[in-house]
């Protein structure tokens, strides 16, 4: 294990352990690798180079070609998390019984990073399910953060949590009373990934978020 030390966006100094094997492939492809790090009630993306020196810290989860954050600190391998999510999804379809699905999920997955991964998977599924009819008709989507947030992300959360718009910030929504904020952020990320995948990576939008207790502020910006 290799340790990295950096100042989080919240001001606190963090020491974080990385298993070099987990990012070996990414480091071979790119000289700098973004790593998703969970800290208290938020995530940060830490950029490390081949010598494990911290090159940058962002409170943004990036969606760019071959540049999605890599989760390194998790007791459960990613493949196992996905397998569990699929198994639970087969029992309770989140597009129909979201809370029942979430309840089952939380009984098996508790770590914030793992919940984020599970959320990504479910966000991807929920968006594809919701947009299946127009996808089949060959529709294309505009690359507009505001429209993605209001038309693609917010409607999916409407059946899950309380949603509020911020009048002064048209690219931000507030999701209140979330049972698992990390899972909610994961869903938002999964939706962006799904759109990005459908649009064959022409979509270049970054997700910014703030977690405060059970409330999540989601902001989308052009990268």
């Amino acid at each position, binding site marked *: 294990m290799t340790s990295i030390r950096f100042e989080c966006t919240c001001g606190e100094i963090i020491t974080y352990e990385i298993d070099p094997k987990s990012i070996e492939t990414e480091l071979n492809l790119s000289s700098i690798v973004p790593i998703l790090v969970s800290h208290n009630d938020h995530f940060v993306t830490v950029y490390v180079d081949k010598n494990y020196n911290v090159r940058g810290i962002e409170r943004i989860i990036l969606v760019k070609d071959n540049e999605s954050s890599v989760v390194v600190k998790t007791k459960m391998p990613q493949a196992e998390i996905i397998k569990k999510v699929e198994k639970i999804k087969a029992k309770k379809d989140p597009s129909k019984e979201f809370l029942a699905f979430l309840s089952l999920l939380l009984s098996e997955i508790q770590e914030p990073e793992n919940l984020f991964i599970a959320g990504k998977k479910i966000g991807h599924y929920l968006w594809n399910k919701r947009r299946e*009819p*127009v996808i*089949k*008709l*060959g*529709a*294309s*989507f*505009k690359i*507009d953060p505001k*429209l*993605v947030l209001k*038309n*693609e992300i917010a409607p999916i959360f409407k059946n899950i949590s309380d949603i509020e718009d911020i009048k002064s910030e048209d690219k931000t929504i507030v999701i209140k009373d979330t049972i698992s904020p990390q899972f909610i952020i994961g869903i938002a990320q999964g939706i962006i990934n799904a759109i990005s995948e459908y649009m064959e990576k022409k979509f270049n939008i970054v997700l910014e978020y703030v977690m405060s207790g059970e409330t999540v502020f989601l902001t989308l910006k052009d990268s």
Partner: protein
Amino acid sequence: MSNNESQKQNKNKINFLGIIAIGMTTVIGSGIWRDPLKWANSSGIFSILAVVISWLLFLTAGLSYAECVSMFPKSGGPYSYVGGAVNKKWGTLVGILYYIGYLFISSLLAFLTANFTLGIFGVQDNLMLVVFTLLFLILFGLLSGIVSPRLFGFLALGWVLIKIVFLIIVSILMLLNADVANYSVNELTFSGFQETINLSIWALLGFEVMLIFTEELNKKDSLIKGNLKMSIGILIALLSILGVYILVTLGASSLVGINDLGTSNPFVIIASNTGIPTPILSFFAAFSAAGTCFAVLATCIHQLRVMARDDSLPKIFNKTKKGYHIANIGVTIILVVIIGSIMTLLIPLTEGLIVDIFAATGIGIVLISAMLPAGIIALYLRIKMPILERPFKTKFYYIVFPLAILLSIFLFYLNIIQFF
């Protein structure tokens, strides 16, 4: 897909002129040989203005569909758009209604073709009418079922060009024999003008059949490429139809003044003024109705295939035997033969009322399944899915799309009120 396969597929697709011709040949049927004289009878030379107003109203539906097809480049027209915007069940319902509506319309068109064909020989016989109607339904059903999309486009183009040539010849002859007194507007009334709008507005129904063949359009064979091509095709078809109608209406108003027609047969009026024999006019009308019947039956057969491809109908409708969709052709011919038989056999008993009832039924179903969804879906998508790319974007949509909805409701009202 390899380049060779892609080129081979494109070779079997409908070209741009072909798709425009499909829209035009469906709209320009046999009615154009008689109706303009009735319009002139209601408002004289002002019937041209009425036709333009009717066209503008219909353009709202055209613009609605032009926007929808630019967003969703898939075959199926109203069926696909309703399925995409609302859900598959509603889409399937609309698709089936659309199919049934055009089964009625094609039976009616075969009846008109038979009627005009018998008119060529001066025969008036009910049994012959039944036989010819069924014969045309089977013949056009088979023809439309066996032709490839590309050949269908060429046939539609050839057919509509000949129709237009006939119309130009007759219109020029009508203008050459014009009576200036017929241009007088002394007897013009607002109700007469409104009546012309009510009568002429029907003449534009049917252009949306083009949308059933969206995926069959070769999107690489001209300057306009991609999803915008069908949208532009719709507008060109509608503009061309307007041009033809203005010419014929101008000719008709040269022969008939306001309230001059009385109970005269429009063919007799044209024949006596232009010197064209009535059998020739009957041939022109039969040829026009036949072209429309052929296009409508091809639409019905293809609609089944499109719906089966999406699993909205049993898979059998997407299966081919030696390259032909036998089930689609068989089911469509059987159904139109049943409808055509009932309609024509009941003519003597109902003194022709059954034809009006069948026509109104077919048109009513088409209005609900084809015209009404145009404005509703385009408006719904603008409000609910502004994120979708619209290569063709209608300006002033908040006026255009609601007008398209109102137009459909108005047409539905006219369709019912004619019986009272």
